[in-house]
Structure formats: structure tokens, C-alpha cells
């Protein structure tokens, strides 16, 4: 039973454990087939009477909308950009995994499954991950059929590379633009359906609320959404038989991240406030090789492919505050700290270790570049060993990108890099069917928490987005829709009106405050708090402090923010204000989640929980569960309720990792 007051030093209360009721049992290889076989089907003739809302047109949303439209459902799709093709999936560079074993190097569905569970630091569900690995194979077939121009070998067959520290070559890629090419494939499939009239597309529409309506049995079902037309400001309500959220990740809670400027949590956070559980919000992936911040005006961070670490050597000056240019620091005054601390893996240690190590160096005052927030990534040795043309052939486009952004020539002086927030493993809690705990509300892609556990392997997010959209949802959603069409919901249904009024009231409030602080200044401050206390290294003390700071900031926001203009126009300040309001609340929950999880695992490092050598230490006995947070709708919204979903491992043995 739920108690209503948090224990001392805590901000949350603990509710009942939950289970994934949709999870199939039996041999793991059969589970997905069984689930598909047992799923109810929808008669093709009935599908045109059934309406599905899909929010988001990234890999997950576009592939889902296209597939559902093709199957004959009436799909209504939304995105906040001016075209579905611009969803942030477009920015993924590296590649997409699939267990094709084209290289005959011992890869298999089972190995991809195994690597992903292990990579997720034993905080993901075996069934889900196995399905992901199984479906990965179909994704590549599907994409090739659509004309995605993957890299090929001279014989005309598909090329692969190895990625993210795994020993097999299973990553398919399209130069450094894999996300772009995959998204354009899904986008074209989507546009085909729009042309065919099965999908209605609404661009520049931002979802601001979910509409829940109880059915005859009193079950609350997701039956629609409230959106704002970002050009006219009109608040529209849309109703349907089911709602799918595929709205991407919330890394922008840190203000600076590699996410797009518009990436937000609004859709998922609104659903959360309506009762959907938010799972593992604190699991954040921080990428070690980003271009460092150059000044206060910085608006976002740019990722450079991790492959740079294959040939670049990372170092800092041995002396604190050494501000000589790199070229004037002699060899024996440089500290190649990764090579020193991790002699066997050196510069190739996993993302989180590399990131943290850089932070420690900078904390010690050895950082380089503006604000001392950077470390060197030096190619001088590689250029000497391989020759400049070889380095150019391998990394030319990355070097060009670096030069364009920083104005420095990485061939003659070392690059500067610093870690940045890149991906969030947390998201809405979903069952095996990708359904949230709200009936009829589904969640796909980075927006859900499903497959990556505490840490995502490189090239696996694209795989998950497309698996969800092309192959999982169309089956599991059909099972849900078999009982539909549900009763029609009129536009003046009290729940619809109520949801719309909530949205309108919030907008009016934002416009009325008319304070003195800009939205961005508050967002930046939130970002600093999150980065400082809920970033690469977290402590109980810091997280507690952060919760307090965020609450103050939230108050500052709601009393002193300045939003110019009116609702009835294209108002980018208003758009940002709404997003930041939600980030403030999400940031608080992230800190509370991080505080609760007194262990280090994957993308969550608690300083209190490390080995003598500074290695992350899990506590499987206490924390082998998914943290599914319920919003305290009845209270003041400050005391979230934790539901634990225990994780069991039947196939992969839980082990600690070591990179020394």
C-alpha cells in the first residue's frame, strides 16, 4: 500500500510493484511469434472505420503511421516541424545494428540480444530485447526495399562495420548520415500514404495534452489529444480510437545536448501527468566526443563520431591551469590519462568511463579551451604513423565539421572534446505491447523506456525506433483495436472540453506572467543544475540540493518569466515556454529517481557506489527493477509514487563489467 509522506531525506513514496501483464512466457525465441499469433486481428474492411493518432514523425512515428495507413486504418499524424522529414532521427550518424551475420563472424540474433542486455547493464527486459534482435533483420530488408542507400561493397552487397565496442560487424550505415537516410525512407513511405489519403498529416502542430475518456466499464482510455496549431495558435482537439506517442527523447532538459532545438518532453510529460508512468527518467547517456562549449551564447552541442577515438589520443596538460597552446606543451608534460588508467582499453574505454574521466580532469583544473571544459583529442601520432592522406580519408568529414564549427584546423592542432548529453534511456513505461499503463495510449521510439536498460549500445536506437514502428506496433495495436471502433467522442464531450480548457488556461497563464526573465535564461539555469548534479556523476547530497534548486527555479519561472506576443500567431517564445515548464517538472523527477537509485549502472553513476578503482558498482540485490513513477495527481505534484517492476534474467547471467 502507498504511504503518503516520503521517508526522511526522500521526496517520493513507494507504491505497489507492477508487472508487465502483456509479457509472454515460454522459450524466448518463440515469445514474439506466440504474441503475434495470439493477438486479435482486425478485419481489413473494418480498419477504415478505426482512427489512430500518431504523434511524432521520427523513425518510430513515421514508420508506424506509414504501416498503419497502409494496413487501412485512418491515421492522423502530427509533428512540430514544418515537415515530417525533419524529425531529430535525421541527425543520427553512425549506423543501425542488425543480426544479419553477413560477415560470418559469429553474429546471431542471440548474440545481439546478449550484447544488448549486457550493454544495458542488466536493467532491461529480456523478452523485449530478444524481440528487438529478431526484428532487426527485417528492418534492413524493409529499408533496402524502400531504396535506403546503405553503404555497399564492390560486389554490390551491403557493407558492415563494427560499432560501439562490440566484436562483430553488424552495423549497417550510409556514410555518416544513416539516420537521415533511414528517416527519409520512412518519410517517403509516410508521404506515399498521405498521398493515398490514408494518413492525414499535421505539421507545425504541437501536442499539449492527452484526452482520457472512461468507457462503459469505467476504464479510462486514451481517446484523443489537444494540439496547438503553431502558425495560427488555434487550439484543436482530435479524437481517435488509440493514441501513439513517438515524440523522441528529452535530453534538452539539460539545455545543452546533441538533441534538436525543439526536442521536448511535453507530449510524454502531459501523458505522465494524466497518469502514465514515467520509467527510469535518470538514465542518461552522455557522449564523450562532442565539440566543447565556446561561450555563454551556446545553443546546442554537436556530436562527433566516436570512431575518432580509434586513432586519436586523449590528453590534458599535467599542470593545472596550463594555458600554453598545445603545441608548446612538451610530451613529458602531457597526461594521456585514459591510456594511463586503463592500459588495456586505453582511449577506447566505453562512453561513460571516457566521459567521466574527462570530467574528473576538468574538475582538477586541467581542462583546456574556453572555461577549462575540454580535453585534447590528438591526431599528431596518427598522422605521423598513417600519413595525412590516410587520416583524411578516414576522418575527413569529421575534421571538416570540427574546423567549420571551431575555426581551428585539427590537422595542425589537437581537437578539443567534451562530453555532452546525447540520449535518454528513460521514457514512458510501456508493456511488451508498447502500451502504457493508460489503456489505449501507446508509446514508441526514444520516448518509451523499453529496450535499452540503463545504457544504450551504439546503433541500437535507430533499430529500436524502426522495430517499434514497422513491426511491433502494427501487431500489438491491432490486438487492442480489435475491440474498436469505440464509441464516438463528440467535440463537446466534457472530457474533451476540459482538456482543451486546461491547455488554454496554461497558455493564458504563461502570457500573463509578464515578468523579467527570458525563457532561455531559465532553461539555461535548469540545464546548469541538471548538468552539475544529475549529469555524469551524481551524489545523494547533490541530488537533494538539485531538487531544492529546481523547485525554486520552477517558482521563479511561474512568477517571473517573460513571454512576448499573443497566442494567435506564430509565437516561438510561447512554444519554448511551454516546453521549459515541462522540463522543470521532469528535471525534478529525474533527480528524485537518481536519488532513489543508490547504485551505479549504465548511464547512471552514483559516486557513492563505485569500486576502489572508480568502476561503477551495481546493486542487483536492491535495484534490479524498473522504476516506474506515477505522478501524484491527488497531491501537490511534488511527491511522486514509485512502482517497481522487478527484472528477472533467465538467459543472460548478471555480471559486473570490467575494462581495466
Amino acid at each position, binding site marked *: 500500500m502507498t504511504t503518503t509522506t516520503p521517508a526522511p531525506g526522500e521526496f517520493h513514496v513507494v507504491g505497489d510493484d507492477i508487472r508487465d501483464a502483456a509479457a509472454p512466457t515460454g522459450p524466448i525465441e518463440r515469445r514474439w511469434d506466440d504474441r503475434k499469433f495470439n493477438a486479435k486481428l482486425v478485419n481489413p474492411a473494418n480498419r477504415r472505420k478505426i482512427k489512430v493518432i500518431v504523434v511524432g514523425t521520427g523513425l518510430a512515428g513515421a514508420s508506424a503511421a506509414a504501416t498503419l495507413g497502409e494496413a487501412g486504418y485512418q491515421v492522423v499524424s502530427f509533428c512540430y516541424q514544418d515537415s515530417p522529414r525533419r524529425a531529430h532521427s535525421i541527425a543520427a550518424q553512425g549506423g543501425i545494428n542488425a543480426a544479419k551475420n553477413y560477415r560470418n563472424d559469429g553474429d546471431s540474433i542471440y548474440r545481439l540480444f546478449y550484447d544488448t542486455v549486457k550493454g544495458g547493464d542488466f536493467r532491461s527486459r529480456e523478452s523485449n530485447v530478444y524481440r528487438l534482435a529478431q526484428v532487426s533483420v527485417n528492418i534492413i530488408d524493409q529499408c533496402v526495399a524502400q531504396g535506403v542507400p546503405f553503404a555497399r561493397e564492390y560486389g554490390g552487397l551491403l557493407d558492415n562495420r563494427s560499432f560501439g565496442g562490440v566484436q562483430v560487424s553488424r552495423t549497417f550505415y550510409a556514410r555518416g548520415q544513416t539516420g537521415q537516410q533511414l528517416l527519409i525512407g520512412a518519410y517517403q513511405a509516410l508521404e506515399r500514404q498521405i498521398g493515398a489519403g490514408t494518413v492525414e498529416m499535421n505539421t507545425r502542430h504541437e501536442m499539449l495534452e492527452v484526452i482520457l475518456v472512461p468507457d462503459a466499464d469505467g476504464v479510462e482510455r486514451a481517446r484523443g489529444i489537444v494540439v496547438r496549431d503553431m*502558425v495560427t495558435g488555434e487550439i484543436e482537439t482530435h479524437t481517435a480510437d488509440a493514441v501513439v506517442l513517438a515524440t523522441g527523447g528529452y535530453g534538452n532538459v539539460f539545455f545543452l545536448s546533441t538533441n534538436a532545438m525543439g526536442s521536448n518532453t511535453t507530449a510524454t510529460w502531459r501523458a505522465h501527468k494524466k497518469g502514465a508512468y514515467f520509467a527510469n527518467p535518470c538514465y542518461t547517456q552522455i557522449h564523450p566526443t562532442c565539440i566543447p562549449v565556446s561561450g555563454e551564447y551556446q545553443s546546442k552541442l554537436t556530436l562527433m563520431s566516436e570512431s575518432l577515438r580509434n586513432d586519436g589520443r586523449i590528453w590534458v596538460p599535467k599542470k593545472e591551469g596550463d594555458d600554453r597552446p598545445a603545441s608548446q606543451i612538451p610530451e613529458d608534460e602531457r597526461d594521456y590519462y585514459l591510456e594511463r588508467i586503463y592500459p588495456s582499453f586505453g582511449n577506447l574505454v566505453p562512453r561513460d568511463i571516457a566521459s567521466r574521466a574527462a570530467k574528473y580532469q576538468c574538475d582538477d583544473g586541467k581542462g583546456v579551451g574556453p572555461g577549462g571544459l575540454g580535453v585534447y583529442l590528438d591526431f599528431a601520432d596518427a598522422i605521423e604513423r598513417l600519413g595525412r592522406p590516410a587520416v583524411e580519408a578516414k576522418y575527413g568529414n569529421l575534421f571538416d565539421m570540427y574546423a567549420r564549427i571551431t575555426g581551428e584546423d585539427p590537422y595542425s592542432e589537437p581537437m578539443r572534446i567534451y562530453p555532452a548529453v546525447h540520449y535518454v534511456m528513460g521514457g514512458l513505461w510501456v508493456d511488451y505491447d508498447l502500451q502504457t499503463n493508460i489503456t489505449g495510449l501507446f508509446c514508441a521510439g526514444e520516448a518509451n523506456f523499453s529496450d535499452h536498460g540503463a545504457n544504450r549500445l551504439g546503433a541500437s536506437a535507430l533499430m529500436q525506433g524502426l522495430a517499434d514502428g514497422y513491426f511491433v506496433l502494427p501487431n500489438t495495436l491491432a490486438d487492442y483495436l480489435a475491440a474498436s471502433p469505440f464509441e464516438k467522442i463528440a467535440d463537446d464531450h466534457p472530457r474533451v472540453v476540459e482538456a482543451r480548457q486546461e491547455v488554454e488556461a496554461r497558455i493564458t497563464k504563461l502570457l500573463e506572467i509578464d515578468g523579467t526573465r527570458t525563457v532561455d535564461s531559465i532553461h539555461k539555469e535548469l540545464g546548469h543544475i541538471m548538468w552539475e548534479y544529475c549529469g555524469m556523476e551524481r551524489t545523494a547530497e547533490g541530488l537533494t540540493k538539485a531538487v531544492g534548486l529546481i523547485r525554486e527555479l520552477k517558482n521563479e519561472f511561474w512568477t517571473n518569466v517573460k513571454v512576448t506576443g499573443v497566442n494567435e500567431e506564430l509565437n516561438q517564445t510561447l512554444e519554448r515556454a511551454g516546453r521549459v515548464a515541462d522540463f522543470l517538472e521532469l528535471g525534478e523527477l529525474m533527480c528524485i529517481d537518481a536519488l532513489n537509485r543508490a547504485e551505479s549502472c549504465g548511464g547512471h553513476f552514483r559516486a557513492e557506489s563505485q569500486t576502489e578503482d572508480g568502476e561503477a558498482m551495481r546493486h542487483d540485490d536492491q535495484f534490479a527493477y524498473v522504476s516506474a513513477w506515477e505522478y501524484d495527481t491527488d497531491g501537490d505534484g511534488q511527491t511522486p509514487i514509485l512502482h517497481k517492476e522487478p527484472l528477472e534474467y533467465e538467459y543472460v547471467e548478471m555480471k559486473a563489467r570490467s575494462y581495466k
Partner: protein
Amino acid sequence: MKITVNIWRQKDADAKGSMVTYPLESVDEHMSFLEMLDVLNEKLTIDGEDPVAFDSDCREGICGTCGVVINGIPHGPEVTTTCQLHMRTFKDGDTIDIEPWRAGAFPVVKDLVVDRGSFDRIIQAGGYISAPTGAAVEANNIPVPKADADHAFEAATCIGCGACVAACPNGSAMLFTASKITHLGLLPQGQPERDSRVLGMVEQHDAEGFGGCTNIGECTAACPKGIPLDVISRLNRDLLGALSRQAVGS
């Protein structure tokens, strides 16, 4: 450094716009062009003025959301997207003119923001390969010669930004349209729909009100992704073929 910007301000689609001048006192040369606009907008907001509306999302040159005409050139003086342009390209004391893409088929929504929905509709008219989900054959059963695959990839890197249209004196979207024709037309998977694709896309291109190509080449010169001009010749060849097959009735 000190910079003066002249920006096209237009309240909404129906309003008449004009150029408005704003001085900026301390611009850092490492700022990106859009960060310079961010700084201006922070200042305007504090002063209670309406900030300048402009589009951007990824800010790393791949989503194609950003794009303004800078000193008469789409995306400005360097071959890159607006978001990847940095202030170090300019000098202290410079005056920079900033205007939205201009084209009949890209109506201005507000200030520097335009509506590029016409591009999506061109794709709807045939810019795809019909491959129903689940119907695909094993990927390696469709070998593609590396040269074709590379060339198709090159054409497929178009980010749909619209700079080609803004640069073209005729407001033609041939480079955009042809890049898709080339991407899909070079692949074996794209062959069955090759004729209907080019017919549909060209018809839609015209219906949207884009102009005709006069082979001037400003599009390629302005294109941040360097989409080559020969894609347009490929479209012309494909259309000629499709029309003649249509005429013969085969």
C-alpha cells in the same frame, strides 16, 4: 565585434513586410549565425519587443529546417547551412541583410519563416518506392553496383531546405525534385515506378507554382549539400523517356 543586421519583418502571411535595422554591439566571432539571432532575440524580449521568428531545429546542418537569405545568398557566403555558418565569416562593422526564402510556392509565414509544404507534396506525388511493410525480400538479394549506390546516396543527401529554390532566379525546384528522381531512379528497386514517379513529381512541381529551370546553376552553387547539377539532366532524360513511352502507349 559590432554588426548591424537588416532583417525582413513581416507579422504574418497577409501582412506587408519591410526591412528593419538592429545594431548588435558585442558579437563573438565563434557564435553561429543563429546564435547571433538568439542573442538579438533575448535582447528584443527583454525590451518587450517581438523577437524575430526564424526556423531551426538540429543546428547541425542535417534537418534542413533553417535557412535564410544572407546578403542576397541563400544560407550566406559559405557553402553550408545557415545553422553551420559562423560569425567569423563576417568582419567587425559589417552590415548583414537577412531575408526569408522568396518563392511563390514558399509563402512567408512570419518574418523569416516560410511554408515549404509544397516540397512534401512533390514527394507525395511519386518520390518513393512502394514497398509495403513486411513485403521486402532479403536485402542482399538486391545487389546494387557500388558506383550506382554511391551516386544514389549523393543525390539522397538533399536535406529539403529549399535554398535551391531561393537561389534560382526562376523559383524552380528542379534540383530538389531531380535529386529524388536520381536517388530512386539509380536503384534497381526504383525501376518499376520510374515513369510514374517522374510524371507525377514534375506535374506536382508545376502545380505548386515552381518555375522552370533555365540551367543557370545557382541552385547547385547555393546547395549546402552540393547536389550536382547533372541530376536535373537525368530528370529531363527520364521525363523524355516517360513521355515518349506514354505517347507510344506502352
